[in-house]
Structure formats: structure tokens, C-alpha cells
């Protein structure tokens, strides 16, 4: 029973952490992609002849923005679907007792 309490505590905290990891990453990228796309369209409307050059640079920036959100989302998904290292530590401690 005590073990069940411990596991439930870790799981609830982990879910909140994973939700934060995924949600904040999604929020940040959504916001910055909006800004990036908006500015891109604005500058193309101003100078249409620069469009090919700007498209390439926009994709570079998209790659830069995407990276850290991807790391964050992967960490969150690993906590939820993979094996949770904190839970594994508690379980092995309980098994050794």
C-alpha cells in the first residue's frame, strides 16, 4: 500500500512535468512560427523579387526554432510512454528493501 502511494505520487508529478514539457514547447514554437511566417509574408509583399532567397532563410530559421521544441517534446513523450527513470529508481529501491 505504501508502495502504491509512492508510485502514484511519482506518476502524478511526472504527468504534470510531461504536460509542461509538451505544452510549453508547443506554445513557444506556435508563437514563433506565427511571427516567422508573418514577417516572411510581409517582406515578400514588400519585395517579391527576394522571395527565393527569403524562403531559404526562413527554412533555416524554422530548423533552428524547431530543434529545442523537438528535444522538449521527446523528453516529455519518453517520460510518459517510455520507462520513467524516477519510477524505475523507486521500484528498484523497493525491490532491494
Amino acid at each position, binding site marked *: 500500500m505504501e508502495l502504491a502511494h509512492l508510485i502514484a505520487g511519482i506518476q502524478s508529478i511526472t504527468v504534470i512535468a510531461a504536460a509542461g514539457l509538451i505544452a510549453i514547447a508547443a506554445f513557444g514554437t506556435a508563437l514563433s512560427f506565427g511571427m516567422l511566417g508573418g514577417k516572411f509574408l510581409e517582406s515578400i509583399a514588400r519585395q517579391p523579387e527576394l522571395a527565393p532567397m527569403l524562403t531559404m532563410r526562413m527554412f533555416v530559421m524554422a530548423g*533552428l526554432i524547431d*530543434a529545442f521544441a*523537438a528535444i522538449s*517534446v521527446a523528453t516529455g513523450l519518453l517520460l510518459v*510512454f517510455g520507462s520513467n527513470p524516477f519510477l524505475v529508481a523507486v521500484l528498484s529501491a523497493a525491490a532491494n528493501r
Partner: protein
Amino acid sequence: MTANFLHPATSGEYIQHHLEYLQLNLRTFTMEKGGFWTLNLDTLALTIIFGVLFFGLFYFVVTRLSSEVPGKLQNAVEMTIEFVQQLVKEVFHGKSALIAPLALTIFVWILSLNALDLLPVDLLIRILFCFGFAHHFRLVPTDDPNFTFALSLSVFALIIFYNFKAKGFKGVTKEVLTVPFGKWLFPLNVTFRLIEELVKPISLSLRLFGNMFAGELIFLLIATMPWWIQWTAGGIWSIFHILVITIQAFVFMMLTIIYLSMAHE
């Protein structure tokens, strides 16, 4: 059961098994983790195979060039080389025999290794299992941080080398001590410079690793879904992932060029 990763009990175990490398302990020469003295054989094998394959292909095309009737293969190779050359010309204004070939190598190598992500996650493991090979095997070398760090540390070494080559020992010392706040605040300048330089290899490699790892993990999650929805989910994510694969190879190459041209100026 020899291969419990083919028939795992839970989806968590399935994912965990697919995230293990084929490791060789260099102290005892057994297939287990050995701390620092561990070789990831799957990463090494795939990177070498694909490096030889693609650069052999490029070499093969270059040896039998034809200016009258260029084939499709020759056109593809020419397009890649011209694309990289154009980018290097735009960003880097000095003269260097190294930067353009380096950029081409990085782009083609990373692109081909990233493209392995599009193969089904169980394909290679099952084929190897048919030949009696019951070990872990990671398919995508670029989601091994050891490989991405190896790439970015090589680029980092080149950045330092070109700093000294372009400016001389005196020039570099002067720049490190006096930029950006002038000579009286030199401790701050040195700290800023150190942070700025050290962030480069870390961000380069973690960016590539993070994207590829996230992609691979989502493919694994899709593989644990029921079979009738795997096609739709996997198809959508594959199409999106083609974009990520290309962009990450491109960004790695672009940042290498930019960093090296910054070292020259």
C-alpha cells in the same frame, strides 16, 4: 526466449528496447555497456557504410562525366554540388579549398543517415533476427549523441584552427581580450568569448540529435498503435519528417559554413 525485444510485454518495454545500442565493451570485448570504453557498433557500421556508399557514388559519377548526354544520376550530383557551392559563395567571401567540400560532405552524409529514419522501425532488426542476430540495433545513426557530437566537435576544431590561421596568434589574443567591451573589462570579454565558442558545438549536435530522436520516438509510438491506424499516422508523420530530415541536414551545413566564415573575419 532469446529475443524479448521482438515480443515485449508492454509498449514501454518495446520503446526502451528499441532505444538501446549495439554496444561493444572494449575492456572485456563482450556485448555490454562498459562506461567510457564502449563502442556503438551499429552507429559506426551504418555511418561508414553510408559514407562509403554515397561518396563512392559521387566519385563514380565524377569519373565518367559526359558533357553531351548527362544522365539522371549526373544531373542529381551536379545539382547537389552546385546548390552547396552557391550557398558557400553567398556566405563565405574569402578563399578556401576546404569549406565547400566540407559543407558538401556534411550535407550529403547527414541527409543520407537521417533518411534511414523513414524505414520501418522493426525492418532491420527483423531481417537481422532472421539471420540469427539477437541483439539491439539502432537504425538511425544521427539519433546517437556520440555521432552528432563527433561531427560538431570536428567542426569546432576546424573553427579554432581557422581562427588562428586567419588572424594569427596575436590577432586571436587581441580579439579575445578586447571584444566586445574594450581592454579594461578583459575578464568579462574572455568569459563571453568562451561561452560563445562552447555553445557552438553543443547547440549544433543537440539540435540534430534532438530532432532525430523525437522523430524516431514518435515512429516507435506509432508502431505501438493498433495496426489499422498505423498507416495513417505513420504516413502523415513520414511526410512531415521528410521536411525535418532535409532541414536539419541543411541547417547543420549552413551553420558550419557560417561559423567557419565568422572565424575567418
